[in-house]
């Protein structure tokens, strides 16, 4: 059993991670955390800094969860990276965080969540920030 979670350092990402931990513990499955960046800008705030990743590792280890953290920087967008990982690890569940987007914002920026919801081959659990 594998749970893939798309993580970004925001309240939504945090909510997704918490939910994913719960799911992983419930089924005793492996947790695959994806935190990616296209690597095209000098600064990307959605790419978690090293220190934060270490905190997450400690948190996962202390809960006794088998985990794998992936931080790809190869020019693919976040949706593609999550879907890739889900396929590669034969995920049974994808967990993502949702945030509110106006229709115009969605038109211009696109929606990572929407792509994952539509294109994933497994169940997708979408959570909101508490």
């Amino acid at each position, binding site marked *: 059993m594998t749970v893939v979670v798309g993580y970004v350092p925001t309240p939504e990402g945090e909510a997704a991670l918490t939910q994913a931990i719960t799911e992983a513990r419930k089924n005793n499955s492996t947790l695959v955390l994806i935190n990616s*960046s*296209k*690597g*095209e*800008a*000098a*600064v*990307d*705030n959605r*790419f978690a*800094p090293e220190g934060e990743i270490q905190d997450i590792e400690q948190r996962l280890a202390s809960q006794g969860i088998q985990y794998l953290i992936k931080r790809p*920087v*190869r*020019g693919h967008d976040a949706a593609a990276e999550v879907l890739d990982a889900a396929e590669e690890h034969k995920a049974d569940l994808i967990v993502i965080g949702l945030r509110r987007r106006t229709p115009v914002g969605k038109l211009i920026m696109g929606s990572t969540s929407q792509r994952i919801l539509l294109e994933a081959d497994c169940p997708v659990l979408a959570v909101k920030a508490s």
Partner: protein
Amino acid sequence: MDVWSSLMDGFATALTPMNFLYAVIGVILGTAVGVLPGLGPAMTVALLLPVTYALEPTSAFIMFAGIYYGGMYGGSTTSILLNTPGESSSVVTAIEGNKMAKAGRAAQALATAAIGSFVAGTIGTALLAVCAPIVVKFAVSLGAPSYFAIMVLALLAVTAVLGSSRLRGFASLGLGLAIGLVGMDSVTGQRRLTFGQPLLADGLDIVVVAVAIFAVGEALWVAAHLRRTPLHAIPVGQPWMGKSDWKRSWKPWLRGTAFGFPFGALPAGGAEIPTFLSYVTEKRLSKHPEEFGKGAIEGVAGPEAANNAAAAGTLTPMLALGLPTNATAAVMLAAFTSYGIQPGPQLFTSEGPLVWALIASLFIGNLLLLIINLPLAPMWAKLLQLPRPYLYAGILFFATLGAYSVNLQAFDLVILLVLGALGFMMRRFGLPVLPLILGVILGPRIEGQLRKTLQLSAGDPAGLFGEPIAVVIYVIIALILLWPFAYKLIRRNRPAAAPAAGASALATEPDDTVHSNHDAVYSDHKERP
């Protein structure tokens, strides 16, 4: 008094609504390119050259001056928040500035950098206004042999003193001189390096060369390293300084200015050496030496003041002698030529109003920069989140448009691409770009002075030594060229003596990239006669 009234006239010109608007555009653009690593004021001015042909020269130069000063301000923001220098003169700022930011004192670091830059820039510009006319008075008395010698000194000094490898510097200079030679010989009408191509007979347009080397070369280089692990900008609020910060900052500001201006004004100045000297001095004089390496405010205040004062200093030989010593000044000099203005000592008399309006606009630009940089620093940091593909696509578009618009010749686009590829290769093999640009721009003018000298002496090379100042300068050139060999010889005889001081100054610096940069700057400084 004459200076004063000319300067006031300059202010009157620079403060007309249109010119003021161009100053505002200039400082905003300048700060933006300063903040973004890889882009610099030289590239921006080169890209804007064709666009500004429609403008009055005064407005164009006011904008260029804003870009030049703005680049210096913007560079410090990136250095402090990201530990990646936005441009070469803020390498030293990153050492203490980033440590301060990591310790939660980013606001104070940005404030001391901005206010220090303002203080140094203002004092530097005032010194420029006072010194430049004096230099001009001295320069008018110089004949062709002395001019030739001074230009050779500038070229050799920039090539041999700055940068880490002399061989690479001279290779780059040679390329530049060769590009400068292309076209018709001005005296005999012979075609040189045209390869039978009639379109090359007029020579390569400097705009095309500058845009190719700076913009296309850099864009290709970035495209080759497009994806890099993103860094984290340290979040920052409104920059401000407490009372103790002011107390610790004002002396470094003034000392930094004192280092920066003369080094900027020297033919081999640049901003790298004075910023490093200022850093070392502040470290030695500080009452809080234990804070150095952990984020000492003096280590930000001094070097930032030094680089802005050096920027003002660089304009002194540029305006008074027509002698550029950094890339931006070189491109600005090319702009003078493309407007049909002859740079050199006669500039102050023939184009007095323009020059003084330019100097006045530097004062105005400095104030504008302080106003837009202090409250808006967090917004500038946001620029770093711009995806590079969009940015460089835009730059390539403007580069192509600009290169084509100069002569409306498709052939220029071929040259643009060929030289762009050359710019890429130079970055790939670590050749500095500055000697090439100086070679292209100064090469033809050096040749002109040489031909004049030889014509006057009827072809006798002894004419080159006909003026005492020329002889003095040749001695200096010889010293610059021979010093490294002499230094090596001395060191071989007394092995343990010299390098100790340099090593201890650098011992506390853990960051590898910055460290190697400093080594280069430091050893250059050691080589100076």
